[in-house]
C-alpha cells in the first residue's frame, strides 16, 4: 500500500491528463479512496478465497515509457488466423501506434488511445463509476493507457476490434494499468476482443478496467481472453450498463497468470436488456483463478445468463461467485446461472457459490453448481473402443471445455482456442483434426 501511495506521489505530475484539473482531481480522489480502504482481505465476503496480501508486499513499479523492439512480425503469434480486425497494441501498458491499425475507421466509429484522450481537454469525459471497488479506484488513480471506443447510432462495425495487451519479460516486477471505455450508440453493433498475452515470463501486475455502456437496442460481443505469463497477476473489473433492448454477450477465458481475478458487474437498467456471459477458466500447478459476477436486474423484462466452467489440475484453485439480484419491481425476469467444474487432480480445489437474491415475485430463475471428476463410465466406453487412456481423458476434458468455446461467434477465435486447449490437455496425442469431422 505504502508503495502505491509513494509511486502515486512520484508519478502524479507525469500521468496522462495531469494538466487537466478534472482528471487530476479524479486521480487524487481515487488514490485517497485506496489509502482509506486498503486492499481487501480474506475477511471481505467478496475476497474470502483470494488473498491480495502478497500484492502489498511486492513492489510493482508502474510501467512508464518503454522502448520495445517489437515488430509487426512479433505480433503474429497473438493474432487470430484469418480474422480481419481493427487492432490496437499495447506493450507493457503503452499504446503502440506503429503496431496498431485504427486508421481509416468507418464513419461513426471512434477508436482512440486513452492517454491522448485524457490530455485533450476537448474530449468528452470518461465514464466513471468507481463504486466501492478498491481495484477500480487504483485503476483510476494510475490509468496509463487504453482505448476509448464510441459507435454512433445505427452503425454496424463489421470488423472486430482486437486489443492486444502484451507484457514483456523485463527486469523486476511492474504494473500495467489499462482502461477501456466503450459506449455504443442506439442500434449499433460492435465486437471487441481484449487479449492479455505475454512474451516471456513477465512479472507483471495487470489491473485493468473496462467500462461499457450499451446504448438502446445496441449489440456488443465482448471477449476477455487472459493468457498472461505464469508469473503474472491479472486483476480485471468489467462494468456493463445496459440500456433498453440492448444485448451484450461476453466471453471470459482465463488460462494464464499465477493469480487471476475477473469481476463482472452488470446492470440491466432498462426493459428488454439481455446479458449473456460465458466463461472458461483453467488452472495448473499452483495457479489461482477467481471469477466474480454480479448481475443486477434493475428493470422488468430483462434477461441474464451465465455459463461458467472450470478445469483445475495440479494444485490449482478455482473460485466462482455469481450473484444475481432481482430488484423490487423488476418483474418478468429470466435469469439462468450455471457453474460446472472439473477437477483433474486430488490437490486441485474449487470454491463455487451461485447466489440469487430476489425481491420480485414474477421471475424465472435457475441456478446450479457442480464440482466433479471425469466420468468413469465415459472413460471406460472410450477405452473399450481402443482409445488410449490419456487420449480418452484429454478428449473428455476437451469436450467439457469446448461447450463454452463453441458459443463464440467469431470462428477464428473459437478455432484458435480449441487448438490451444487441445494442446493443454494432452502432451502426446494429436488433436489437429478434432473439428474436421464435426
Amino acid at each position: 500500500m505504502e508503495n502505491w501511495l509513494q509511486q502515486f506521489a512520484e508519478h502524479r505530475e507525469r500521468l496522462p491528463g495531469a494538466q487537466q484539473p478534472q482528471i487530476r482531481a479524479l486521480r487524487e480522489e481515487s488514490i485517497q479512496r485506496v489509502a482509506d480502504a486498503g486492499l481487501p482481505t480474506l475477511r471481505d465476503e467478496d475476497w474470502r478465497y483470494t488473498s491480495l496480501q502478497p500484492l502489498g508486499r511486492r513492489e510493482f513499479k508502474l510501467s512508464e515509457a518503454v522502448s520495445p523492439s517489437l515488430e509487426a512480425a512479433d505480433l503474429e503469434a497473438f493474432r487470430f488466423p484469418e480474422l480481419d480486425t481493427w487492432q490496437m497494441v499495447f506493450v507493457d501498458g503503452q499504446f503502440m501506434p506503429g503496431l496498431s491499425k485504427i486508421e481509416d475507421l468507418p464513419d461513426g466509429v471512434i477508436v482512440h488511445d486513452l492517454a491522448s484522450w485524457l490530455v485533450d481537454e476537448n474530449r468528452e469525459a470518461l465514464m466513471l463509476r468507481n463504486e466501492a471497488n478498491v481495484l477500480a479506484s487504483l485503476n483510476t488513480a494510475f490509468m496509463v493507457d487504453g482505448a476509448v471506443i464510441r459507435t454512433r447510432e445505427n452503425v454496424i462495425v463489421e470488423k472486430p476490434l482486437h486489443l492486444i495487451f502484451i507484457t514483456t519479460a523485463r527486469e523486476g516486477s511492474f504494473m500495467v494499468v489499462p482502461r477501456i471505455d466503450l459506449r455504443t450508440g442506439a442500434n449499433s453493433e460492435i465486437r471487441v476482443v481484449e487479449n492479455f498475452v505475454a512474451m516471456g515470463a513477465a512479472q507483471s501486475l495487470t489491473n485493468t478496467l473496462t467500462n461499457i455502456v450499451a446504448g438502446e437496442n445496441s449489440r456488443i460481443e465482448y471477449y476477455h481472453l487472459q493468457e498472461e505469463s505464469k508469473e503474472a497477476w491479472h486483476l480485471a473489473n468489467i462494468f456493463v450498463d445496459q440500456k433498453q433492448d440492448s444485448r451484450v454477450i461476453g466471453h471470459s477465458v482465463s488460462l494464464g497468470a499465477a493469480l487471476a481475478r475477473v469481476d463482472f458487474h452488470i446492470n440491466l437498467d432498462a426493459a428488454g436488456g439481455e446479458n449473456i456471459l460465458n466463461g472458461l477458466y483453467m488452472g495448473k500447478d499452483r495457479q489461482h483463478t477467481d471469477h466474480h459476477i454480479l448481475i443486477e436486474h434493475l428493470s422488468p423484462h430483462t434477461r441474464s445468463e451465465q455459463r461458467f466452467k472450470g478445469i483445475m489440475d495440479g494444485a490449482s484453485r478455482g473460485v466462482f461467485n455469481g450473484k444475481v439480484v432481482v430488484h423490487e419491481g423488476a418483474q418478468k425476469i429470466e435469469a439462468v446461472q450455471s457453474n460446472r467444474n472439473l477437477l483433474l487432480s486430488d490437490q486441485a480445489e474449487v470454491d463455487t457459490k451461485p447466489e440469487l437474491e430476489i425481491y420480485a415475485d414474477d421471475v424465472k430463475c435457475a441456478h446450479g453448481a457442480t464440482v466433479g471428476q471425469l466420468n468413469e463410465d465415459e472413460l471406460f466406453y472410450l477405452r473399450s473402443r481402443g482409445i488410449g487412456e490419456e487420449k480418452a481423458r484429454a478428449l473428455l476434458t476437451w469436450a467439457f471445455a469446448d461447450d463454452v468455446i463453441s458459443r463464440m461467434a467469431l470462428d477464428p477465435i473459437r478455432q484458435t482456442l480449441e487448438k490451444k486447449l487441445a494442446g493443454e490437455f494432452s502432451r502426446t496425442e494429436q488433436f489437429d483434426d478434432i473439428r474436421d469431422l464435426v
Partner: protein
Amino acid sequence: MENRQPMLEINNLHVTVDGKEILKGLDLIVNKGEIHAIMGPNGSGKSTLAYVLSGKEGYEVTAGNLLFEGKDLLEFSPEERAREGIFLAFQYPVEIPGVNNAYMLKAALNAQRKHRGLEELDAMEFMALVKEKVKLVQLKDDLLQRSVNEGFSGGEKKRNEIFQMAVLEPKLAILDETDSGLDIDALKIVAEGVNALRSPERSMIMITHYQRLLNYIEPDFVHVLADGRIIKSGGKDLALELEKRGYDWVREEAA
C-alpha cells in the same frame, strides 16, 4: 466349426465386485467363428462376464484365467483388449456430450489399426468406410455427426453399438443384452446387422435374457449361467426349452 481354434478360453473364473463374489468358477471355450449365447436369470453374473472380458475397473479376478488367442487377457488394459480385437456392445451405451460420434470412432479405429501395424485412415477414407457400414444398421447420417449417443433413442443407441462393431471389425464381439428394450422392428435391424457381420474369422458371445433374440441370430451354442457358473450347455434348442420351462429345472438338474 471346421477350424476348432480357440479364440477365447475361460478357466475357473472367479470374480469379485465390491467384496462380493459374482462369478464362481466359470468355464467357457469359444472357438473361432462360433456364436455362443449366454442366458440366465437376473443377477446371475452375465454382465459381470462382459465387463471382466473388456477390462472394466472394479472387477477383481480372484482365481482362474482368461486367454484370448492364447494371450493372458488380464495383463491388458481395456484399450489394449480392444486393439487386440475384443469389442463390447454395451447394454447401456453412455452418452458423451461434446465428443463427436464420428470423431470418436475414427480415433478408435486408427488406434486399433496402428496397433496392428496398418496405415491410419484419413478423414476421407474413414468417411467412405462409414458410409458403407452405416447402411448395415440403417442409422441416420446425422447421428454420426452428433455427440456420442447424446439424445439417441434406445434403439438408436443399440444400433450405434452394432455400427461401431461393423467399423471396428473385432475378432470377438460381446453383445451384452443388445436386444433388451428394443421393439420388434428395431430388433430385426440390429439382428440383420449382426448377421451381416458373422464370419468364420469372428466369434461372438451374446448375453441375453430373452430367447427372442435367438430367433433372429442363431447361435451355435447356448449356455445357462446361474449363480456365477455355467450350469448347462447345449444347442439352440436349449434356448427354446428355457423359454418354455424357465431356469429352475436347470438349476435343480445341476444341483
